[in-house]
Every structure is written in C-alpha cells, then in structure tokens.
C-alpha cells in the first residue's frame, strides 16, 4: 500500500541550517537532486520540476480530467529527445496552450514539492546536468518554493490531531440528521469518491487531484465527524468486563464499525489539572471494571 510522507521534519523552510537544496540553489546548479521521496530538477539554481511517485504528475492530471489522453502524453515523452523538449512538443502539436502547460506544471510541481522538500540531506544525491524530459517550463526560486511548502505544511499541522486518517482508507460516516454541518463542493465530491478502500493519497493519485488538498480536506472531514477515524493502535482492545460499543438488536442499521469522535485538542490542554478529581474518577472507573 502506498504511503505518503505527509509529516516531514528536518531540513529548512528558509530558516535555520541550509539544506542541500539551498546549497545547490546558491551555486546556481543545473541537474537532478534525488532523495528517498522523489526528485527535484534544477536549472541554474531554480526548481523547474519535482517528481514524487506518490503524487499525480502533469500527465495524470491532464488525463484524468479528460484534457489530454495518456497516449498523447506518452508520445510527448518519446518525442522529447536529447534536448528535453517534451513541453515544446506538446505546444507545437497544439495539444495544450502555453497557459495550461504552465499552470498544470506549476500545480504538479508544488504538490510534489510538499512531499519531497526539504530533502533530507543524508539521503540525497545530485547528478549535474541531468534534466527532465518535459524541459524547463516555468522555474521557481528554491527559497520561494520552500516558503510555500512551509505554509502548506502549517495548514496540515493545524489539523494535526486528525493525522491518523492520512494513511487509512477513507470511510465516509453518515451523520445523524440533526448533526450535519454543511460541506463544500470539494468535500462532497471527495466523499462521493471515497470507496472505503483507498487512502487519501491513493484517491488523489487516482483522481488526478492535489494530494495536499485531499489530505487537508480528509482531515477536516474527520474533524467534522464525516470520515471514520482508524482504530487507535497501542490501546488495549479488551479488558475484563469491558464491552464493545456496537449497535445491538434489530435497530442496528448495518455493520458500521464504532465511530470515534476526538474532542477538540485544545480542550485537553491544561496547565492546572485537578488531580484530586482525576484520582476520584480513576477510582470510580476501576471499581466498575
């Protein structure tokens, strides 16, 4: 099963110790910087392509949208040749407009960058002169890209309490009729495509959508109780006398697994816990076990 390295740490986002990308950007290097999560292509220090196997690339996005058949994309790959002019080929054929190629390429670059940058310095290798077949479409300054990635990551971090849904199949939860906060169009669309099998990253890849935005929306849906949280690991499943909270009797409308709603994480933080109350509570709970 594909996993998406959504929660990364280390490296720099423009602050702190410079990473390998900062170094090659400062040297105005041209080539490919390969790491465990993907590959960053540089032209004179600017990033013009980022590849991440877990993220939909330009061809995936165009094909799933019905904008450019996969077969034409493959022809562009074959036609690119030694001068790496696949992008120019697509434009010459009239299959894409310049604006479409630029916007789609930048969207794919940024989405992949979120899961590749900043590269972990210990595991990267740089191949000078190595170029991507699509060619230089519209390069982005490395520092500006790192800052954009950091801003995206901050949005995911704000919903960090629901990170457990990132790697789990997306299972929609039908809420009680009176408890239905309205959804955005994108959230409805996402729930309509959630098949209970694919993870957010797999859904995004298959549907040619932004992996970042899909992860963000699934975390939001989890926070709103509209997506099932995966069972917590590391907690005892059974205790003597404990029972499972499954629906019983003929009223149970299906075989839904228990739904867990996490409280607002802010409510769990306190500088002044009422220890006496907590001890009384624990004693009472133990007496009922």
């Amino acid at each position, binding site marked *: 099963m594909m996993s998406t390295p959504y929660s990364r740490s280390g490296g720099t986002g423009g602050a702190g110790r410079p990473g390998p990308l900062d170094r090659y950007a400062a040297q105005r290097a041209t080539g490919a910087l390969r790491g465990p999560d993907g590959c960053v292509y540089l032209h004179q220090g600017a990033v013009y392509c980022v590849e991440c196997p877990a993220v*939909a690339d330009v061809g995936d*996005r*165009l094909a*799933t*949208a*019905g*904008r450019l058949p996969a077969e034409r994309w493959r022809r562009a790959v074959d036609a690119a040749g030694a001068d790496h002019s696949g992008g120019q080929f697509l434009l010459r054929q009239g299959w*894409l*407009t*310049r*604006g*479409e190629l*630029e*916007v*789609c390429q*930048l*969207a794919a670059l*940024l989405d992949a960058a979120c899961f590749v940058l900043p590269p972990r310095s210990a595991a990267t290798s740089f191949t000078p002169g190595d170029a991507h077949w699509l060619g230089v479409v*519209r390069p*982005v300054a490395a520092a*500006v*890209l790192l*800052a*954009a*990635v950091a*801003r*995206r990551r901050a*949005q995911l971090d704000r919903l960090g309490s629901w990170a457990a849904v990132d790697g789990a199949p997306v299972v929609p939860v039908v809420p009680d009729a009176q408890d239905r*906060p*309205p*959804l*955005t*169009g994108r*959230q*409805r*669309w996402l729930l309509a495509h959630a098949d209970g099998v694919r993870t957010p990253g797999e859904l995004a890849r298959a549907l*040619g*959508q*932004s992996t*970042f*935005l899909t992860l963000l929306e699934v975390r*939001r849906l989890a926070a709103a109780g509209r997506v099932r949280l995966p069972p917590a690991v590391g907690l005892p499943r059974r205790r003597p006398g404990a029972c499972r909270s499954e629906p019983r009797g003929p009223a149970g409308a299906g075989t839904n697994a228990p739904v867990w709603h996490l409280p607002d994480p802010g409510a769990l933080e306190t500088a002044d816990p009422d220890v006496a109350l907590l001890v009384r509570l624990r004693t009472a709970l133990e007496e009922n076990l």
Partner: protein
Amino acid sequence: MPGIDQVLARAMEIPGVLGAGLTDWTSGLTLGTAGRAPHGDHDAAAADTAEVVQAVARNATFDTACGNGEPLEDLIVTTGSSYHLIRRVPTAFDSQTCLHLWLDRGQANLAIARLRLRDLATELVGN
C-alpha cells in the same frame, strides 16, 4: 495562445491597474507578477491573497449555499483608495490558481476591471 506572462501583461492594460499577479492560493506561491505590489513586495501580496481565498474556499457558506457547489469566481476587496480583485482560474484539470489585480480606485472602473479579469483568467487556460 498566451502564457502567464502574456496574460499578466494584458492585465496591466486594464484602466487604473497598479499591479497584477498569478498565485497558488493554497500556498501563496507566486506564479507570475507584473507592475507594482502593495509595499513593493509581490511575494507578500501573493501570500496575503492566498489567505483571503483560503478563508472563503474552506467554508460551505460561499460554496454550496444554493446546493449546487458552483466553484468560487471572484473576491473583491475595496478600500478608500484601492480595489483588489481576485479571480479563480477555471482549469479543466485540478489546480488552485487565482489571478489578482491591484487597482487605483480613482482611475479604475470596478465593473469593467472585473469583466476583463474574467476574460483573462479564461484565456490563460484556453477555455
């Protein structure tokens, strides 16, 4: 067919325009700029524009109020001296891009600028 730079150059022909930009609204990444930016900082303008779009895009109030989930079109911010127009770029494929203008309120016509920006956003992606 125009690319990002050609579309931004055309945006600079809109009466009263001070500056223009193309931005990824999920991250504030600047994809292209032309003319001036408030406080002389295009990247800061892009990041601030992105925050405004995010604040609107994540709320169902502006998105599915009539039930059909029509995507966002424009955001208009007016101040005593300026207009800020933000237009989502309607791509066939998945992207989160917006075209935005900074206009001198004394020189610009808001209705005309909005229609011109709509046409430019459509031209950019060849629809």
